[in-house]
């Protein structure tokens, strides 16, 4: 009895192993298959966008107390910018710097840092979640993006807000984009201060986006220009952000 049973087991085990390894090497092939990727593997993001927008509505991301802050808030992405223009601006406290807001708006204009600081501000202690898995809790003060967009009067055709940044990866300036739902969310701010102090270079001076219901790579640093557009196809590789174009990260990073 033990003999045949043992061999039957071995046959099954070998068959199982073979099928498994075939299936697993198949996963690499499937993952790089364009049709499978575009129809199936991007399905999670499309569903998440619809379901999470429905469930979250305009609810706020959790906010934390002073005592709950991370003792050390690590930086991510670029921490230093060598470009002479940027060095000049940071040397004089961005006194001659302007944030340009243009594209599909009625009244395009520039904002000085003092003008932004003079606008009604919002301070929030929130959790920053990196796509890699770590989290840090810190306090941010800035002008709600909604207030800025009301100033420049968004045209009805506009659907996305694009952020153009001063930092570069391999010679390409960083860029990111969000939809108008997040753009007008009360916690979406352009932060000029972190933990009560002027935003340091490592965290994106003079301005960084806080879009609290999405992951870290959406929190664009070193913002220089803001553009309102109707489609993302004309921006970089067309997927709406630097990492989206270069590495295929989700444009909707709510989860």
């Amino acid at each position: 009895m033990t003999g045949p049973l043992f061999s039957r087991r071995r046959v099954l085990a070998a068959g199982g192993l073979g099928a498994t390894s075939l299936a697993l090497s198949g996963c690499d092939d499937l993952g790089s298959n364009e049709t499978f990727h575009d129809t199936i593997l991007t399905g999670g993001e499309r569903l998440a966008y619809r379901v999470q927008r429905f469930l979250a509505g305009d609810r706020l991301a959790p906010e934390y107390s002073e005592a709950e802050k991370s003792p050390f808030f690590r930086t991510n992405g670029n921490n230093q910018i060598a470009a002479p223009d940027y060095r000049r601006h940071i040397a004089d406290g961005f006194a001659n710097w302007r944030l340009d807001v243009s594209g599909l708006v009625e009244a395009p204009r520039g904002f000085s840092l003092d003008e932004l600081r003079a606008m009604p501000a919002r301070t929030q202690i929130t959790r920053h979640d990196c796509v890699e898995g770590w989290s840090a809790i810190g306090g941010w003060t800035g002008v709600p993006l909604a207030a800025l967009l009301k100033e420049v009067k968004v045209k009805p055709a506009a659907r996305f807000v694009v952020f153009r940044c001063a930092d570069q990866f391999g010679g390409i300036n960083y860029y990111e984009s969000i939809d108008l739902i997040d753009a007008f969310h009360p916690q979406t701010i352009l932060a000029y201060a972190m933990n009560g102090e002027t935003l340091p270079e490592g965290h994106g001076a003079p301005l960084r986006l806080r879009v609290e219901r999405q992951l870290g790579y959406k929190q664009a640093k070193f913002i220089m220009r803001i553009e309102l557009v109707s489609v993302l196809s004309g921006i970089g590789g067309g997927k709406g952000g630097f990492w989206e174009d270069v590495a295929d990260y989700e444009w909707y990073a709510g989860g």
Partner: protein
Amino acid sequence: MTAVDREMAAAESAPAAPAVVYRHRVSTRLWHWTNVVTLVVMLMSGLMIFNAHPRLYWGAYGANQDHPWLEIGSTNGAGVLRVGSLTVETTGVLGLWQDGDGRWNRTAFPGWATIPSNYNLALARRWHLTFAWLFAAGILLYLIWSLANRHLWRDLAPSRSELAPRHIAGDIRNHALLRFPKGEAARRYNILQKLAYLGVLIVLIPTMVLTGLTMSPAMDAAWPWLLDLFGGRQSARSIHFIAAGLLVLFILVHLAMVVLAGPINEVRSMITGRYRLPQEKRQ
């Protein structure tokens, strides 16, 4: 004696043909095989996602400067796993391993265990977060269906007598001696099976889904109670990893039991639903 009586008497005295019972309903079989696919994809793409930051923390926050309770990495040319104050060298398996071409890699989990097999966080997330919908929908529908058709009460809920320590101890002993139920007793799940299946069904898998949702910043805005339930996002990430480990353990024991209890009968019953009751040993 009528003809029927005679026939019955003859049947009783003749060696009984193995009784075949209908054991697994369509819902169970469908869910089982869906899980075979989704769980493999979720586990392996999950390990690749872990590789992006191979450290686990307790609490709301946790990053490189904070203290991890678990870490996989490499130091001084050796792969290491650190859990609390315990350090284990894992060269060749975790933290430092050779790929098929003989090159050394420093990611936590080796390529044979991850989807994709190379380091690609974006692609691993696409696999993970797409199949997560199948996984979550599967457990939700199966739980609803199992309540509706009373599968949970009829087949899985332990009776009071089964929960008696003496009964459980007896069943552990039977398992340890590889003595599996025969005949009529094999119609029902034994207490260890009931506890294992219930644990997976109502504790482990829901925990996987809910801790997964807790890691989503948008879901934390929608359902902030998730953070209270698991003690913060990084705790949820740790619990997600531990629960995944327990699921792997369940799968290994499950597969071992299938092999030991008669793989053909067991696998066939999960395909056709029909299970041949193992015969009692004749004296």
